[in-house]
C-alpha cells in the first residue's frame, strides 16, 4: 500500500536542491533581474539572509514589489541603491515606526528612487493573476474614490466590465522574476513547511519564475510524505534550498524565534541618518562574509549599551 524500498531508491536518484546561500543567489538571481518579491510580512518570516546575500553580490532589480507589507528588506535594498523602482503597498515597522531609509529616499527632492504608489490588495490580486496566467486583475469597487488611480495612472487602468458595461479599475498581472522566501523546514527537494503563518508566500512560490528558499533546517523526505497536508510549498516550484541558522534575523521565524526588538531598535536609530545607515550596512550586511559572521556580530553586539540609550 505504501511506497516501498524501490521508490526510496528512485528518490535517492533525484537531484537535491540544497545549496549554500551564496551559491543559490549566484546561480538563480541574474545580475540585473527584472523584478523581485520578498516573502514574509512586517517583521515576520522575512528571508533576510537571502536579502543580505543579494546585496553582498550586488544584484540589481528593476522593480521591487514592496507588498503586501515590507519592512527591513525594502530598507536595505533601497538603501543599497540596488532597486530602480519600488511598487509600494506598505513599507514600515508597525509599532517601531516609519521606515527611515524609504522616508529619506522619498522625501529627497531629486528623484533617485522611482516610487509607484499602490496598495496591498491590488498587489496581491496582481500576483494572483500572474500565477493563473491571467493578463490582468479587475479590482473590486472602491479604489476609484482614493487618490491612487491619479497618482499611479500606469499601475491602475480603467476597463469596461463586458457583462455590465460599468467602468472598473484593473491592475496588470505580476509574475516576479525572482522570489525569495523563508520556510521553517524543507526536505532536500524543496518541499517547504511553514510552521506558522503562510503570509503570501505559497502564492508567491506559485507565481514566480525563480523561487529561492531559505530554511532553518532540513528534514527527511519521508517526514514530508508523512504529513503532506503540511507542505506549504511544493518542491517543484523551488530552484534552490539554502539552510541557514536564524536566517530571518532580525525579523521573526514563526515558531523558531521572535523578531529581535533590540536589534530592530538599533537599526531604527542607526538608519535615522545616512551615515548611521552606512555604518549599519558595513557592520551587518556588506561587512560580514556570510550569515555566520553576521550572527557573530549580532551576538557580540553590546545590547546593554543600546538599551541604556533608550
Amino acid at each position, binding site marked *: 500500500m505504501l511506497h516501498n524500498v524501490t521508490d526510496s531508491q528512485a528518490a535517492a536518484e533525484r537531484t537535491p536542491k540544497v545549496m549554500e546561500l551564496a551559491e543559490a543567489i549566484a546561480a538563480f538571481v541574474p545580475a540585473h533581474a527584472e523584478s523581485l518579491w520578498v516573502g514574509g510580512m512586517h517583521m*515576520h*518570516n522575512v528571508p533576510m539572509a537571502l536579502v543580505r546575500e543579494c546585496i553582498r553580490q550586488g544584484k540589481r532589480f528593476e522593480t521591487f514589489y514592496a507588498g503586501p*507589507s515590507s519592512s527591513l528588506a525594502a530598507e536595505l535594498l533601497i538603501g543599497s541603491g540596488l532597486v530602480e523602482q519600488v511598487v509600494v503597498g506598505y*513599507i514600515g515597522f*508597525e509599532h517601531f515606526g516609519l521606515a527611515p531609509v524609504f522616508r529619506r529616499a522619498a522625501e529627497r527632492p531629486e528623484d533617485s528612487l522611482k516610487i509607484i504608489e499602490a496598495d496591498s*490588495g491590488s498587489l496581491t490580486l496582481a500576483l494572483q493573476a500572474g500565477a493563473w496566467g491571467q493578463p490582468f486583475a479587475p479590482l473590486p469597487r472602491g479604489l476609484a474614490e482614493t487618490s491612487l488611480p491619479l497618482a499611479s495612472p500606469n499601475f491602475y487602468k480603467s476597463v469596461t466590465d463586458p457583462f455590465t458595461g460599468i467602468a472598473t479599475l484593473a491592475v496588470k498581472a505580476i509574475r516576479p522574476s525572482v522570489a525569495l522566501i523563508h520556510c521553517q523546514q524543507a526536505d532536500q527537494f524543496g518541499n517547504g513547511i511553514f510552521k506558522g503563518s503562510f*503570509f503570501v508566500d505559497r502564492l508567491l512560490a506559485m507565481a514566480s519564475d525563480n523561487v529561492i528558499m531559505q530554511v532553518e533546517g532540513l528534514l527527511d523526505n519521508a517526514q514530508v510524505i508523512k504529513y503532506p497536508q503540511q507542505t506549504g510549498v511544493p518542491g517543484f516550484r523551488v530552484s534552490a534550498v539554502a539552510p541557514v541558522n*536564524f536566517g530571518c534575523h532580525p525579523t521573526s521565524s514563526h*515558531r523558531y524565534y*521572535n523578531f529581535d526588538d533590540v536589534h530592530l531598535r538599533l537599526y531604527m536609530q542607526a538608519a535615522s541618518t545616512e551615515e548611521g545607515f552606512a555604518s549599519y550596512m558595513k557592520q551587518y550586511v556588506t561587512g560580514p562574509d556570510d550569515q555566520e559572521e553576521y550572527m557573530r556580530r549580532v551576538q557580540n553586539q553590546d545590547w546593554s549599551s543600546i538599551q541604556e540609550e533608550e
Partner: protein
Amino acid sequence: MSDDYKPVLRAGSDPLVFFNYPGADEGSAIAPGHIMAAAIAHALRDGEVVVMGANPLLPLAASRLAQLTHAPNLTILTGASGGVNTLVEPLVPSSGDYANLIAEAVLTFPEILMLQMGGKTDIFFAGGLQIDRRGNCNLATVGKHTPPTLRGPGSAGLPWAQSSRRTLLYTTSHHKRLFVPQVDFVSAPGWPAGSRDPAASGPALVVTPLALMDFSDEGLMRLVSLHSGVRLESVVAATGFDLLLPEGDIPVTPQPTEQEMRIMRRLDPDGLLAIVLQ
C-alpha cells in the same frame, strides 16, 4: 512546544514570549488607551466579523474585550498572521505574530484580503497620518505627492475600507497635523459630499486619546463624547477643522467598568495600552 523548537537566540527572543515595552508598568490606572479600547468594544455587535491590519494592539484589545463581554460570536481576523479568533494573552503588538496563531484557524494573507475585499467582514479598523472631517484617511504622503514632506508607509489595505460595512478609525494622538481639513492623499475614502446614503458603508466612529466622534447625516465628523478630564477647548484646539458638536451637554465617554478593566489588565498585563498612547 514541539520537539523541533529551536534554542532561542537569547532571553526574550522566544516567539511566544514578548519583550516588555520600556516603561511598561502594571497599568493599574485607567489610561486613555483603556477608555478607547472600551469605546471601540461597545461599538462592536455580536456576530460581526472584524479585520485589522498593522499595529493592531488597540483594535485587538477592543475586539477581545467585546468577545469576552457582550459579543461572544464576534469573529476576529488578525491581519498578517492570518489568525482567526486569536486567544493569545498577553496581546502582542505585531499583526503578523506567531502568537496570534493561538487561534481557531490560520488563513493565508491573500485569503484575509479576499474576505475583506469580497465584503465578508463587517468592521475594518483604520488610521492614518492625516484624517479629515469627512473621514478620508491618508497613509501615503503628506504635502505634495513627489516629493512629500512626510512619506508614510503606503496605503496598505485602506483603499478597501468600504468593503466592510463600517470603518472604525483610531489614532494614538490628537492634534492639528493629524486632523486636517482635507487629507493630501486619500488612502481610505471617507463620506462623499452631500447627504449620506444610509445603506452605504464608510467611517462610523473615530476614537482618539481625547474624544469619541462619529459622522453626521451629511458625512461630517461630529463629537460624541469627551474622555474623562478632557476639556472641549482642548479637542477644538487640537482639531484642524470645525468639529460638529452634539446638541445639549457634551457627554463624557463612559469609563471602563471594573470588569472591563479586569479583562484589559489580563489581556495586557504590561500596560501597553497605557504606554503606546500619549
